[in-house]
């Protein structure tokens, strides 16, 4: 027996791709059974590579991992029979109907006919696909397809469900629905759910535990409240009159001793300070001295954005490479 306690254990995973791109750089985390765990990070942080290793699609250069207590590297076949996987791309055969895709999945997992029929009917109902069941998947909307993908991954009642960016491309309503299903799975059926996302708000609202991934490493881990509480202090959010003034403003704030860290996102600038109300006059004075006009100021408790900024040393949006004009 091993001393494995988590439903998913990743230890010091390392992986580089051809051309020397280092995707994983000693990534470790542990997922409690029956919980929803989010790997949160910008595109390119290493989330997909991690999921690919855990679902046996890819092998790491170093480190080890277990899923449901089974070693991913030495027993990939056994891992495959206890996991469900929803990748970024659909995975449904588009010329088959939704019903046929679900039945195929059950047959691959050698489910008995009666059990499979019952399970498929149950999932079609649960995912609102009863009407569409006999239609070819190529006629489905993006949201229906995604629901079918998740239903397919659940046909064989996996112990651990992996979802790689499942909510990308869904409308806000669809995202909320999907998250409701995932949290329900964990609480009602004890399924362990590992989901990757680059939406801070989603991880914040729905995941029991969050691991923040940056450049192939976990930089912080905990539930959303813990992560925020660890960042003592406040966030001062400044709306600048001129988006191009951000650089100037950050420079001006380096001369304000109360400011620990800054991050600009277009005309929005956040400054981390120990005590928001007390630091505010100094912040504003510093900006005025630097000749940066400010439109509005808000003092707030830290958000996950601030958590990310603190641990990764840059703002989430910067890391994503999004430039706001």
């Amino acid at each position, binding site marked *: 027996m091993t001393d494995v306690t988590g439903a998913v254990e990743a230890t010091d995973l390392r992986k580089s791709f051809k051309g020397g791109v280092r995707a994983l750089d000693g990534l470790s985390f542990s997922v409690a059974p029956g919980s929803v765990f989010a790997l949160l990070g910008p595109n390119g942080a290493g989330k997909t590579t991690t999921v*690919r290793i855990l*679902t*046996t*699609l*890819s*092998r790491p250069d170093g480190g080890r991992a277990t899923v449901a207590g089974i070693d991913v590297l030495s027993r990939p*076949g056994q891992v*495959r*029979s206890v*996991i469900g*996987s929803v*990748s*970024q*791309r*659909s*995975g*449904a*055969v*588009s*010329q*088959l109907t939704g019903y*046929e895709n679900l*039945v*195929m*999945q059950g*047959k*691959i*997992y*050698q489910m008995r006919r009666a059990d499979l029929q019952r399970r498929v009917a149950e999932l079609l109902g649960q995912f609102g696909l009863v009407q569409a069941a006999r239609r*070819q998947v190529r006629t489905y909307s993006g949201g229906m397809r995604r629901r079918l993908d998740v239903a*397919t991954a659940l046909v064989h009642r996996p112990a651990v469900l992996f979802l790689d960016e499942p909510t990308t491309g869904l409308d806000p309503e669809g995202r909320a629905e999907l998250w409701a299903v995932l949290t329900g799975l964990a609480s009602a059926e004890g399924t362990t759910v590992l989901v990757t996302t680059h939406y801070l708000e989603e991880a914040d609202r729905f995941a029991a535990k969050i691991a923040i991934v940056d450049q192939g490493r976990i930089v912080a881990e905990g539930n959303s409240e813990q992560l925020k509480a660890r960042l003592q202090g406040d966030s001062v959010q400044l709306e600048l009159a001129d988006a191009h003034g951000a650089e100037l403003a950050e420079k001006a704030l380096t001369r304000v001793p109360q400011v620990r860290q800054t991050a600009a996102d277009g005309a929005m600038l956040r400054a981390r300070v120990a005590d928001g109300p007390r630091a505010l006059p100094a912040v504003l004075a510093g900006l005025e001295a630097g000749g940066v006009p400010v439109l509005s100021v808000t003092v707030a408790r830290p958000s996950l954005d601030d958590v990310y900024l603190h641990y990764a040393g840059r703002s989430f949006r910067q890391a994503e490479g999004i430039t706001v004009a």
Partner: protein
Amino acid sequence: MNLVRQSWVLLTTRYLRQLYRQPAVIGITLTQPVIWLLLFGALFKKVTEIPGFGGGNYITYLTPGVVVMTALFSSSWTGMAYIEDMDSGVMDRFLTAPIPRAALITASLAYQAVTTVVQSAVIIALGWAMGARFPGGAAGIAALIAISVLIALAMAGLSNGLALLARQRETLIAASTTLVLPLTFLSGAFLSLRLVPGWIAATARFNPVNWAASAGRLAIGGQSGWGTVGSYAGFLAIALVLTAAASTRAFRAYQRSV
């Protein structure tokens, strides 16, 4: 056995069902060989009169050639389904499920075998309607179909392997076309090798397509050539095993890339 069971699941719940949903594909698959038979039949009608060909009915000569050529052409596209599966995420879904890698190959080959049997039977029936005669009888026809399946699966294994390595439609199309046309025309599929330049005849001796065409022609001819038919079929079976094994290994290259 898991390999057989999973191949059967994939063949029936996926490949054959998908084919049934695409009647246009069935139509095109069956029309294409008809065109070859009519076209080459008309184009080369008089070649049997060339001294040295040996006379006889050209449609009788041509039918096994078209059977083999069609098997080769359609199986050379087998890998396209893999590329589609890689693009759509279906491949990753299968690779994370408890399906042996070899079953992914054998399911695809089994599907190709079914297609080839139907296609070959249609061509043989049409050839007969156009005047071809098969002194080898039912056994000869069965042997021709079996041989067309062998060459189709050898080519399909190669096509799957190329698909897993190249992972791009353009590359697979270029490779298939470059391979398939010379293989067909450097064989006795359309013309007796007694009439072609020496170097072509020499090359043809090492060409699996020529093995298949010659073996098929001997089989339906009903002459006493069963030993030759058997040894050609053996060579083709070896080629099939080699390409199927190579394509199973090519999954590793694909997985390294993801």
